[in-house]
């Protein structure tokens, strides 16, 4: 039996003992996870620095801040989320208990990504733990230092049978995917996403796929271009462009194009100084392969800002490309690097058309003061999310479901959505063995009379609340009439 098979078997055995069912246990594990993040802050920052060149503060801001928020939210709300959810009844079920009961799925697999190795691997874990599952965690091998730290340190805080960490490369992942899980959560690209979904389909395992795409960013000439460019610069070059929700390319009218380029250049200098290479808060490309890939994308377009690189360090300067058309190399795939192409469009109509010609992205960004324009882009394009006048921040709002649509993925998470994604919402109808007379109309032999009753009782949905309200009103009216009568009589 392979190592992966053993790990999954152990996780399943552990789950079947029922220890992850009580809410207290789940809260205990979540608290341990919180402790892990605060006690091992240094280890995490160190690993991230080695993997992606991120500074310590940068690591905290982007990796663990959101994670801590999610854990605290889950701990605070767990009782509410896990409680039975009552639903509206109909006439026939008026005296019954009707509700939806969230239940754990079983053993889930979480495959992390390398760009935010902690945030993207552990945030789904929070939902999995909260929902009462066992979870096999597979951090990405492309960020090896983070994977190693996770493998060594996480078992010191979390139950190592219920939440094992499995490291390894393609072969180990394929072996894992051969096993049967009750849910698979994958973050990465769509090519591997398809393979994950296919492997899952043999076992009829549901999946959540957080994939990528080219997230467009439309800048309307009516907006405050300085602020807009600043926010776009921040969103684009954080983590050296290696963010799934980074603005991939910019669409704007030719009349503001040079101003946009100018403002972005100013913001780059403001954030990363004149020499980003030596600046602590500017990251690196994850590895040689991606470095070469991103460099090759620059072919055929002119560099407006930046453009320099250093292969030995996997460093690419924050770069802005102009003279880009829909057929340029840089428009053929998701960039996932610090190159920002600017494409000229004649206005919002052409921008919407341009966006709709391509696959549905994870996010659509629009910068404008005109609310009507924003609402138009919202209604006429489709994407995982839409952000107006900023970049990336929807990731931090736990109440917003985070996920893709079409090629950018399926399913969503964050906050309560994480809990629901890893739960089975089971419908429950608790009836009694009384009132059989009502049921008799459904039994054969069937008669026209029974059919008539059935139509009457089944066809209309009666809102119980409404019924109560109506009967309350009738009662009050009756009472009022009674009181008035007595008063009149007295008088």
């Amino acid at each position, binding site marked *: 039996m392979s190592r992966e098979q053993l790990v999954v078997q152990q996780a399943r055995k552990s789950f079947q003992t029922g220890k992850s069912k009580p809410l207290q246990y789940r809260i205990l594990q979540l608290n341990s996870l919180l402790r892990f993040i605060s006690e091992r802050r240094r280890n995490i920052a160190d690993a991230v620095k080695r993997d992606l060149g991120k500074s310590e503060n940068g690591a905290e801001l982007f990796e663990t*801040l959101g994670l*801590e928020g999610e854990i605290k939210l889950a701990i605070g709300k767990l009782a509410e989320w896990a409680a039975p959810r009552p639903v509206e009844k109909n006439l026939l079920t008026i005296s019954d208990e009707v509700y939806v*009961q969230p239940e754990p799925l079983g053993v889930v697999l979480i495959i992390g990504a390398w760009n935010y190795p902690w945030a993207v691997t552990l945030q789904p874990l929070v939902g999995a733990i909260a929902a009462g599952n066992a979870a096999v965690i597979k951090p990405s091998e492309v960020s090896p230092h983070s994977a190693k730290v996770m493998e060594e340190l996480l078992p010191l805080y979390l139950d190592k049978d219920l939440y094992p960490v499995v490291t390894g490369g393609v072969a180990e992942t394929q072996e894992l995917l051969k096993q049967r899980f009750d849910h698979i959560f994958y973050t990465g690209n769509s090519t591997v996403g398809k393979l994950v979904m296919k492997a899952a389909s043999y076992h009829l395992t549901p999946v959540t796929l957080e994939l990528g795409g080219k997230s467009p960013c439309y800048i309307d000439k009516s907006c405050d271009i300085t602020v807009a460019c600043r926010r776009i610069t921040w969103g684009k070059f954080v983590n050296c462009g290696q963010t799934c929700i980074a603005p991939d390319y910019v669409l704007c009218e030719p009349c503001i194009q040079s101003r946009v380029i100018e403002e972005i250049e100013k913001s780059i200098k403001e954030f990363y100084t004149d020499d980003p290479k030596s*600046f602590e808060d500017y990251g690196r490309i994850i590895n040689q392969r991606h470095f070469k890939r991103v460099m090759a994308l620059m072919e055929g377009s002119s560099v407006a800002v930046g453009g320099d690189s250093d292969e030995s360090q996997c460093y690419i300067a924050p770069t802005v490309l102009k003279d880009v058309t829909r057929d340029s190399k840089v428009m053929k795939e998701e960039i996932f690097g610090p190159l920002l192409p600017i494409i000229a469009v004649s206005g919002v109509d052409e921008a919407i058309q341009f966006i709709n010609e391509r696959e549905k992205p994870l996010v659509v960004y629009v910068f404008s003061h005109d609310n009507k324009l924003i609402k138009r882009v919202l209604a006429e394009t489709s994407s995982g999310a839409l952000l107006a006048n900023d970049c990336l921040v929807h990731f931090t709002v736990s109440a917003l*479901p985070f996920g893709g649509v079409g090629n950018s993925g399926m399913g969503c998470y964050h906050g309560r959505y994480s809990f629901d994604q890893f739960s089975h919402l089971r419908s429950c109808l608790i009836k009694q063995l009384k009132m059989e007379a009502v049921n008799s109309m459904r039994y054969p032999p069937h008669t026209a009379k029974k059919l008539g009753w059935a139509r009457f009782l089944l066809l209309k949905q009666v809102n119980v609340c409404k019924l109560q309200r109506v009967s309350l009103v009738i009662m009050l009216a009756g009472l009022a009439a009674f009181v008035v009568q007595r008063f009149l009589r007295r008088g």
Partner: protein
Amino acid sequence: MSGKVRACYACQRNGRLTCRRTRLGEPCLKTYPLECVNLLKRARIAFQAGRTLTEGFRLAQLEAVVRMLEEHECDFVDALGRDLHKPRFETVVSELIPVKNEAFHAISNLKKWMQPQHVEGNMSTTLDECLVVSEPLGVVFIIGAWCSPVQMCLVPLVGAIAAGNCAIISPSECTAHTAELLHRLIPFYLENECFHVIIAGTSDLPEVLELKYDHVFFTGNREEGSRIAQAAARTLTPVTLVLGGKNPCYVDQHCEIATTAQRIAWARFHNAGQNVVAPDYILCHTNVKAQLVQALKGCLMQFYGSDPRESRSYGRMVNLEIFNRTRDMLWRSGKVAVGGQVIEAEKYIAPTILTEVTGPDSVMQQDVFGPVLPVLTVMCMDEAIAFINKQEKPLCVYAYSSNSKVISRLMSETSSGSFCSNDSILQSLMVTLPFGGVGASGMGSYHGRYSFDTFSHRKSCLLRGTRFECVTYLRYPPYEDRNLSLMTWASTLSQKSQGWCQIL
């Protein structure tokens, strides 16, 4: 329908030996994958033109579905009568009324469902609008099953319409008359470019799925479900699968046997047992087994008379394949306590109860899609729970007991798509409860609001202003410790706990 019938010209040209004609002399209605390409294209163009987006359009289509069922009730009764020998009562109550209820529910709630949902932001997004907007997916593909052919095609269709999608529906070719009826009627009621009906065999489906849809909704058995899921994986198409399963039914020693028997008998034998949510097998406490079997026998007599074959309330198997399969199961398992008669020419199998059934018996190794009810005995509830948990997760778990502790335990120690105590099937008819499977019984759910959500994409929207850059500057590089602590504070507090923020 198959085997000896000569194929029509179109089918022969396509190298098929069997054909799908509902009446001799009529053209075959089988849709070939190539035709699907055209229909999909038309549906996509219609969707992109934005026709399905307005509330008015969706309401009109939903009302048209109701009208179609009302105006053609007799045709549906007739078609289902021919396909499954379904009594009028069952067609109306279990096929037409549920669809109408779903449509009414959608009509009265559509406005609310279509409204963007405002959500709570955090402090750093206090001055912004955070909303979740439901948008349609595009063109969805709905594959119906033969056991409840109308309900299983039209209930998801109601959800798809309400969510603003275009749809291609494929009713099962096993219930040929019903499929043909839907194929004929839908163009008269629903918008022709947006909604199409195709009649494809299940073996053609993976090929049809190669064309990209935005969601695939499938009801059927596990093997087909897995093939559909694999085909959908190739195009990253999300799927909802409502698959079968062996729905266990536990009968406790403390329960009112007469009522229990009536409810179980109704649930198991209506539609001649061809029901995906019917109790598949009984786990009966040894103390009450004899009584239960006796009571069931009495109920069957009451429902269908001494010869169910003569009863107008009793159905037939949908085709020879299912008939043969069920008959083989019956002959090879346990002992026949009630019924057992079969008549091949009529595809008739009498309501049958089997006793002395054990785990390895043929009837326990596959889903029972026929009027055969195996009764197994257990010494206690623990044994029942252990038995249930050894099988794959089913669509439903049923429990009959007057002891609420027994019910709670059975519910919390098993897992299934849904659960119902002291009755069966009803939980799948309620518009407000999600209906779907888990594990091997499927993924995703529908009915009511859940249908709307299944066929929608919930898009997160965060609408900020470009003013108040003074707050936003905290997050820009260079990253300083002071900024980090301020950001931590701002992003973790929520609006509710800081009421004064709302005044801002």
